[in-house]
């Protein structure tokens, strides 16, 4: 048996033990002190979304374009029996809207039936709440970003879906506010 085979066998055993241990251990009590985040890529920039602001994550969903004057509106898509608009998250973050390639990933906002499309999904991340710090910079591209956290070697901003939805709502229906779910 070669070294690679030994390594694969050890890894398989480790995975099995970790899987079994997760069901053997008692549920953690400090779950509330943790924050679930979806690390995504908007354009080429890494961002994160709070799971609590997202109703669902999908990939390669069919988006039907609509004739519109709103450049960020990519079209509409079906979700659990209802039709909802899909906005380009990069456009909402004031990045130039890419016309050649369409974003693959789609996150459904929890507060409103609105889809937010983006280019990449990196991973699901669970971090302590105290690891999240407020965003210091305030400019146009980070106007929907209030917090950041350290992911690996760099800081990753957390997009405020509520702020995005508010911007969409204010653009569609001036004066309306985002309904909290």
């Amino acid at each position, binding site marked *: 048996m070669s070294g690679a085979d030994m390594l694969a066998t050890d890894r398989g055993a480790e995975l099995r033990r970790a899987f079994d241990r997760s069901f053997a251990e008692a*549920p953690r009590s400090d779950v509330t002190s943790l924050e679930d985040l979806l690390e995504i890529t908007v354009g080429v920039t890494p961002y994160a979304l709070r799971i609590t602001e997202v109703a669902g994550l999908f990939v390669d969903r069919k988006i039907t374009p609509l004739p519109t004057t709103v450049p960020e509106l990519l079209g509409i898509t079906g979700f659990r029996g209802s039709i909802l608009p899909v906005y380009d998250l990069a456009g909402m973050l004031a990045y130039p809207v890419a016309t050649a390639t369409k974003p693959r990933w789609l996150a459904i906002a929890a507060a409103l039936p609105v889809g937010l499309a983006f280019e990449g999904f990196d991973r699901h991340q669970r971090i302590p709440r105290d690891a999240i710090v407020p965003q210091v910079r305030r400019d146009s591209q980070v106007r929907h970003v209030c917090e950041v956290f350290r992911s690996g070697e760099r800081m990753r901003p957390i997009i405020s879906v509520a702020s995005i939805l508010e911007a969409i709502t204010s653009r569609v229906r001036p004066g309306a506010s985002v309904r909290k779910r």
Partner: protein
Amino acid sequence: MARHWTFGQKVGASFALLVALAIVMGLVAFLALRTVVSSKDRVIDIDAQLLIGAQHLHALRESKGSSAREFLLTRDEQALGTMQQARADVVMVLAQLKRNVSDEDGQRLVEAIIEAETANQRAIDDVVALRRTNVSLDEVVRAFENRIDPTRDRLDAAIRTFVSREEQRLQGAKQASTETASLATMVVAVLVAIVLLCAIATGVVLTKTLGRQIGTAVGQVQSSSAELQAAATQQATGAKEQATAMSEIATTISELLATSRQITESARRVAQIAEETAAAARSGDDTVDHAHESIAAIRRQVDLVVSHMLELGKKSQQIGTVLEIVSELAEQTNILAINATIEAAGAGETGKRFGVVADEIRKLADRVAGSTKEIRGLIEDIRSAVNTTVMATETGSKAVDTGSKQFAYVTASFKRIVGLVTTTTEAAREIELSIKQQMSAIEQVNVAIANIAQASKETEASTGQTQQTASQLAFLSKDLLRVIRPEAAA
């Protein structure tokens, strides 16, 4: 051109000239002598005969007169007969004179004599007739004196006239003959003088010309003998140098002979080595054939490896396809787990347990995705390795092809080498044979060189003799020149 005449031609021409002059002189002398003889003959035969005839005629007249006088005195008939006989002789002499006299004056004188004699004879006949008669003697004497004497005087006068003329003519002819003889003598003398002068001139010219020519020739002989002497000296020196050179050549040829023997030995060894090389080349040829077969087998194995590698690549691609499905499934599972987590988070407290399961599913999906990514990397490595291996194998296949072709070239080269080595062996043998023949030739040349050296020595000796002969020739030519031109020799 007289200048180009030879010695013999000049001498011959001189003798021919002298002989021609002698012939001319002889002819002239002959003609002169003949003229003189003819003149004398004419004097003797004609003039002298005429004079003698005239004298005889006078004597016959005397005889006839005496006989007539005797008859008249004695009346002797015998005397009359004598007289008649004398008369017949007179007539005959007169006829002869008349025949011999050629000129008119002479004929006239002869006619006068005949006429006087006829008158005299008539007078005599008359007196004789008178005497036969009986007349007295005195009368007869008177008749004789009156008739015969005058006729006799006339006859004598005519005869004397004729004699005188003939004497004058004889004298004249004699004088003319003497003058002719003198002229002939003078002509002959002149010719003799001319011949002598020509002979002297020819002798002088011949002497001078031949002397000059012989002197020149002798001078040339002298010069040539000097040159011959110098040439003989040079030849002697050359012969000596040639003998020395021949000796050196003989030494060199001996060394060449030794070298040729060494070359023969080397050629023999070359032939031996070439034979061994040919055997090795044939063995190498077999080895190359075996190697060619091995390369063909390697090529087949390489083709098999390429085929297997391509199959492995296809399988890897299929694994990649399956892995894509697995990856997609993992991603879907992950999304599903995330959505479950979202739903669990939305469910509040009741969804926590479900959230744990969803989280584990997500972790599992993450690990599957990580493993899938890792497998994808490994598959990519495998595909890359397969591609590299296929490329390397194809390169190896091409190299094997190239090697196979090269081996074909090598095989051909080995065959050529075998052929060339065989040719080399034959050439080495031929060289060995040629060197042996060359050695034989060199030995013959050595013998010939020895002979030439001996001949050079003999040439040297004979050159000494030539030198001596040239010296003698030089002395001889000097003596000859001294004999011919003393002033030049001095």
